[in-house]
């Protein structure tokens, strides 16, 4: 790209031309009509988008941590690809949250009002994250491939059932994000299911490892189907996760049966005074995850890349 003079070359307007992927990330909802549907409370919608966006963001980060650790190159690429899809979903949902929230009255939704996606991802503290605790589980140190497969199987099965229903949302932006997400999470679930069968129906050792992976994630399953007050308030905009429990159980039964595994019968992990991931109460591992994920952005808060 040529410039008429040296000043033009360094001016902001032309900055993007000099970099392969731009100097800053543009709004992922650029040009999308983000006006609120009639009768929808902006702060409720913001809170809801934050929940689904945080689920995707935190799970994506866990999958990214598998780079250089997967058993084969193909699986490293697979886990990174799945992480990338979820990161894309997180970007859209966090951006939607920031646009939907209004500063008044004070609420969880108000706390995200007008904040761009990067501010929400990198400059919120642990108690402000609304993701389910399943996404936080660490499986990469020490490396436990069966655990990440079990975690992904449960996560993708649950999210796919939820996104499929969300395609009928009265909010056209959520419906569109869900429709794209369904296509992606379908093969995330297939990937995890195929590995579950391969390990479960493999050697005695791989069978034992896969079963213990499933057992380890099972205490976090119950929370996925709790109906949150925001989901209740957003009747035809949000999806009540409790509606998807049967579909989830059917898929898990089918996979476990093909994998010669037992669907665990382990009670759900209690909250802290009843408060769980959706209320901003997380596991011990969440602080370490955020410290790593947010370190660069917090060290260089003005940086663009």
């Amino acid at each position, binding site marked *: *790209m040529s410039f008429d003079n040296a000043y033009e070359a360094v001016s902001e307007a032309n900055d*993007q*031309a000099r970099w*392969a*992927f*731009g100097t800053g*990330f*543009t709004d*992922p*909802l*650029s*040009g*999308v009509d983000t006006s609120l549907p009639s009768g929808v409370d902006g702060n409720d919608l913001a809170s809801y988008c934050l929940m689904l966006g945080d689920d995707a963001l935190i799970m994506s980060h866990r999958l990214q941590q598998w780079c250089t650790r997967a058993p084969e190159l*193909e*699986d490293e*690429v*697979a886990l*990174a*690809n*799945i992480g*990338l*899809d*979820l*990161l*894309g*979903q997180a*970007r*859209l949902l966090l951006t939607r949250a920031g646009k939907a929230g209004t500063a008044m009255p004070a609420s969880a939704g108000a706390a995200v009002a007008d904040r761009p996606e990067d501010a929400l991802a990198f400059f919120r503290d642990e108690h402000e994250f609304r993701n389910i605790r399943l996404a936080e589980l660490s499986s990469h140190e020490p490396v436990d491939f069966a655990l990440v497969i079990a975690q992904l199987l449960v996560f993708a099965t649950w999210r*796919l*059932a939820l996104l*499929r229903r969300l395609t009928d949302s009265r909010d*056209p*932006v959520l*419906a*569109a*994000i869900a*429709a*794209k*997400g*369904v*296509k*992606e999470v*379908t*093969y995330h*679930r*297939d*990937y995890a*299911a*195929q590995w579950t*069968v391969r390990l479960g129906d493999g050697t005695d050792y791989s069978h034992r490892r896969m079963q213990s992976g499933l057992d380890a994630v099972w205490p976090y399953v119950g929370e996925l189907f709790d109906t949150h007050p925001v989901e209740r308030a957003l009747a035809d905009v949000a999806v009540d996760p409790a509606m998807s429990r049967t*579909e989830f159980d*059917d*898929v898990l039964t*089918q*996979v476990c049966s*093909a994998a010669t595994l037992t669907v665990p019968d382990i009670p759900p992990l209690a909250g802290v005074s009843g408060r769980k991931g959706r209320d901003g109460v997380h596991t011990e591992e969440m602080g370490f995850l955020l410290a790593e994920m947010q370190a660069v952005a917090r060290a260089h808060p003005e940086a663009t890349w």
Partner: protein
Amino acid sequence: MVSAVTSQGRHTPNQARRISDPRAVAETVTDPELPMLTLADLGVLRDVSEVDGTVVVTITPTYTGCPAMDTMRDDLVHALRDAGYRDVDVRTVLHPPWSSDWITDEGKRKLAEAGISPPGATPRNDGPIPLTLGSPVHAVRCPHCGAANTEELSRFSATACKSLRRCRVCAEPFEHVKEI
């Protein structure tokens, strides 16, 4: 879906170059990851129109996390500016979601020529999405030797939109654009 492009003379050229139809200009822009394909071949370019002297280009992402979207926007803006259109607005639409069915016949031919197997038709279903525990049933032909006897090595490849396969006849590995 695609609106007609307005006549050529309405905007004011800011450079002394020949001004062509803005749609024709936008259609020359290629995909950053699959440079043998234009964004039009890929079905990513959804609309080009002119509103009050501004060229409005509408694109849709193939995958939600596709990191090439910013580059596509920049490439479109630069191509149109180089053709003399000063005001360019690139908009994103998410609905309906991109489908590999939108890759044009021309695009599929170019993929095959480049050794990348083009996608077949997308499966349709209503209600709960069926689980796939085995390999996908549809046959994928080897783009090198044409044999139908190929196997999937990984559902994931160098970009989100491709899987990695191998031909059982000529033993060459190849990439396949996934059906979504």
